[in-house]
């Protein structure tokens, strides 16, 4: 049988310091929890199309730490780490999240998996300390050169709409 076509991730901004990413999955939530917390599985998806994950360390207990390292396609390496604050198996993970390029900025992420039977609705909530930190986070999720392109686009009073 053909796999269901993927649903898009929806990004919203509940407040000036928050990001909320919502996505439905065609799988029960215990499998998403496993894929989210098992190093060998994390390596297969977490890098997306932007690079390959070379390190995925997970010490899944409250107070335990996680650390991911990705080699981006452009050649440079980026690393993230944090500490688990709350773990409810198959339901919820609260953890801190630090991009090691900006080590003094810490976000708090909450993963929530809502049981929809054979399907699951995932909410990934990211709370930053300031709007500036949040906006920098969003900008970091973009392809290389995209920011410059946006600046340019802004300059030329966009006739594309």
């Amino acid at each position, binding site marked *: 049988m053909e796999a269901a076509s993927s649903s*898009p991730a929806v990004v919203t901004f509940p407040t000036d310091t928050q990001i909320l990413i919502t996505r439905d999955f065609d*799988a029960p939530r215990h499998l*998403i929890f496993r894929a989210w917390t098992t190093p060998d599985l994390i390596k297969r*998806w977490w890098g*997306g199309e932007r690079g390959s994950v070379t390190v995925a360390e997970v010490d899944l207990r409250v107070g335990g730490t996680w650390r991911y390292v990705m080699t981006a396609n452009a050649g440079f390496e980026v690393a993230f780490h944090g500490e688990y604050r709350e773990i409810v198996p198959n339901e919820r993970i609260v953890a801190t999240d630090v991009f090691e390029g900006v080590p003094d900025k810490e976000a708090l992420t909450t993963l929530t998996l809502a049981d929809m039977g054979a399907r699951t609705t995932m909410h990934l909530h990211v709370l930053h300390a300031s709007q500036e930190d949040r906006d920098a986070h*969003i900008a970091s999720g*973009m392809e290389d050169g995209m920011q410059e392109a946006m600046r340019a686009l802004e300059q030329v009073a*966009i006739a594309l*709409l």
Partner: protein
Amino acid sequence: MARSATTADAFNAVAEGRRRQILDALVDGERPVNDLVTRLGIAQPLVSKHLRVLREVGLVDVRDHGRQRLYQLNARPLKPIHDWVKGYERSWSERFDLLDAVLLELKEEENGDGSGE
């Protein structure tokens, strides 16, 4: 993204909650300033100050209509913001598409023979 200290671009203009409320109020069509004062429940000088910022970045246009000045929304300067967010959304979508493939495998493992439901 580096943020300039002034309100010189749309990113800064919409960072302020009241200004987003004004844009929301103008989505249905043009309105005089008094209308916005009533809707937002704040003093006219404050509404006028926000309108000035929105006009400076091109998000709001104004035209004279008899004795009234009517303000209207121009959404074009929002496009870079929209695109900027879309870029972020896309990088997550790409991750989740890969996660879908992992999940499909895990499901097949659980079902034992891989025949699915």
